[in-house]
C-alpha cells in the first residue's frame, strides 16, 4: 500500500514510514500538499476525510506549568525535534484520509514555512476540510490559501494569539502553583511509597 502511494505521488514524497499492522505515515513537500491529497482521493480511492490539524514541534517554553510562580522559571530545552517522517520547520500540518472500500488509512504530513505560515487549502478536495482548516487557522495561525472563509470558529474575532502554539501560555497554570505533577501524596506517618502495579 505504501508503495502504491509512493509510486502515485512520485517526487512529492519526502519521507515515509510504515509500521506493519499499525499505520502509514508520509511526508510530502509543502508545495505538493494539495496535489498529493487530490491524487490520494481521485487516483488511490482515499475518499473518506478523517481529520486535518497541525503540530507545533517546539517544546513549550513554559514546560508543563507545574512550576512555582514565585520562583524564577527554570531553563528549558526548546530545540525543535520533529516526529515521524522528520521535518524541517517548527510547524507541520497533518491530515488523515481513509479508503472506504479497503478501510486502510494514511496520515499525511507537510512542513509549514516558518516565516509566513501558509499552505494550500484542501477544502476543494475534501469538503469536510473546510471546518478543520478554520480550526487550525485559529489555533495555530496557519493560513490556508484558497480557503473560502477563514473566520474564527471558537474565539472572538479580535482575539490575539494562537492558543495551540506551544509559546501560548496556559494562564490557569501560570497564576497559581500546581499541586504536583506526580500525584503521590505522602502517607501519614511514613514517606511516599512508589511501588509498581496496583
Amino acid at each position: 500500500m505504501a508503495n502504491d502511494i509512493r509510486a502515485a505521488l512520485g517526487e512529492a514524497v519526502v519521507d515515509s514510514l510504515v509500521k506493519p499492522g499499525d499505520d502509514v505515515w508520509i511526508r510530502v513537500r509543502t508545495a505538493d500538499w494539495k496535489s498529493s491529497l487530490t491524487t490520494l482521493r481521485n487516483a488511490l480511492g482515499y475518499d473518506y476525510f478523517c481529520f486535518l490539524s497541525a503540530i507545533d514541534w517546539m517544546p513549550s517554553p513554559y514546560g508543563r506549568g507545574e512550576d512555582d510562580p514565585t520562583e524564577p522559571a527554570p531553563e528549558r530545552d526548546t530545540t525543535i525535534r520533529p516526529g515521524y517522517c522528520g521535518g524541517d520547520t517548527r510547524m507541520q500540518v497533518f491530515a488523515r484520509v481513509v479508503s472506504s472500500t479497503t478501510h486502510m488509512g494514511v496520515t499525511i504530513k507537510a512542513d509549514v514555512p516558518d516565516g509566513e505560515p501558509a499552505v494550500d487549502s484542501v477544502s476543494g478536495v475534501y469538503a469536510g476540510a473546510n471546518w478543520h482548516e478554520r480550526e487550525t487557522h485559529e489555533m495555530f495561525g496557519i493560513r490556508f490559501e484558497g480557503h473560502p472563509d477563514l473566520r474564527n470558529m471558537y474565539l472572538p474575532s479580535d482575539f490575539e494569539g494562537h492558543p495551540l502554539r506551544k509559546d501560548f501560555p496556559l494562564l490557569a497554570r501560570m497564576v497559581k502553583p500546581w499541586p504536583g505533577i506526580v500525584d503521590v501524596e505522602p502517607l501519614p506517618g511514613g514517606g511516599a511509597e512508589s511501588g509498581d502495579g496496583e
Partner: protein
Amino acid sequence: MTMLDDKLGDRQRLSYIAAQAADARLNVELETEGMTLNIGPQHPATHGTLRIIARLDGEQVVWAEPSAGYMHRGYEKLTEVRTYPQVTTLINRIDWLGSFANEVPFILAAEKLMGVEAPPRAQWIRTILFELSRIANVSLFLGDLGVQMGAVTPVFLAFRDREYVLNLIESATGGRFHPNFDRIGGLKDDLPAGWVQETKQVMKKLRNFCDEIETLLFGNEIFQSRMRGIGVIPREVALQYGLSGANLRASGVDWDLRRDQESPLAWKHADWKVFTHPDGDSFARSWIRLQETREATKIVDQLLDGMPAGPVMAKVPKIIKVPEGEAWVSTENPLGEMGYYVVSRGDLGPFRVKIRSASFNNISIVPWVLRGVYVPDIITILASLYFILGDIDR
C-alpha cells in the same frame, strides 16, 4: 455549489435552483431581502448550545451556517499539561452521554505506544461498558427524536429505560455520567457481584424499549412523512465531509470500525450485524440508530456469557511514562468515529493530542444539507444528524 453539483439528488438540485430563483425574484421585484432566522443557542433541538443562522426565503432555507464554540473548553491544550492518567478525566466530558466510550480510544493509543496489552477480561468488560454507553446515549436520541416532532411519550419511555443502564454503569464504575474507569493496562476494578444477572435483565427491558419505539414512533405516519426523503445525503458527499457512524451507514456505506478494524476489544467474539440503509435521509439515520441499539444489547448479552476469568489489570508502573512515538486509534463511538492522534515525547504527559470527534465532522455538513429545505425540516434534520455539543467543541 460548484464542486458537489453532480452529487446532488434531483430533489435537492431543484429546490436549490428554486430557492435561488425565489431569492432573486424577491430581491428584484419586491425589493425585499430574505429573512434571517436565528435558531439557538438555546433550543431543545440543539442538545446544548449550537446556534444556527439561516437565511430564509419564505419557508425555504437559502443559506445556513451553524455557529459552534459556545462550549469550547480547550481540551487539546489542556492535555498538554496533564499526565496520561489524568487525561481520561477531561475526555470523559467530550461526549457526555457516552462517556466511557470516549476513554477507550485514548487509553488504547497510550497502550499502543507503551506496548502494553490489557488482560482479556479487561478487554471484555471494556467492550461491555462501551456498548452500555452506546445504549445509554442512543436511547436518549430515540426518545428525543419524538419530541422534535411533537410526540411526548417516547421521551418518557427513553428516560425510564436509560435510567436502568445508567444504574448499571454506576454500580460497575461508581459514576453515572463520568465513569473515569479505564486505566492504561486494564480497568480500575472488576465487576461487582450480581452485575451480570442484573445486566441481562436490563438488556431484555432495553430490547422491549426498542420494539416499543419502533412501533410507536417509526411506524407512525406523521413521523414517516416528516422524515422520509428529507435531508438526503448521498454517499460521496457523506464520505467527503467525513461523516461517520450511523450517519455514514445511512448513506449506504457498509463500514463499522468495530467490525472492519483490528482492535484488542472483544467485538470479534460476538455475533452481530452491521445495518446500512440506502436512502441517506433523516429516516434512515434514525432507523440505523434504533437497530444499532438493539444489536448492542445482543453484543452485551453474548459477551456476558463468554467473559473470561482472570485479572483486570496488567502489570504497569505506578508512574506512567509513555515512550516516544505517534499513534492513532479510533473506535466506533455512539456518535461515530472518535479518535485520538497522540504524540508522545517520552514524558509523563502527551506532547500533543489531536481529538477527532465525530460530531465536528457530522455537523460540518449542515450548511450543505440545509440548503433548500423547509423551516420545520431544519429541526428534524438536525435531530437525525445527532450531535452532542461537547463533541463538536471539545
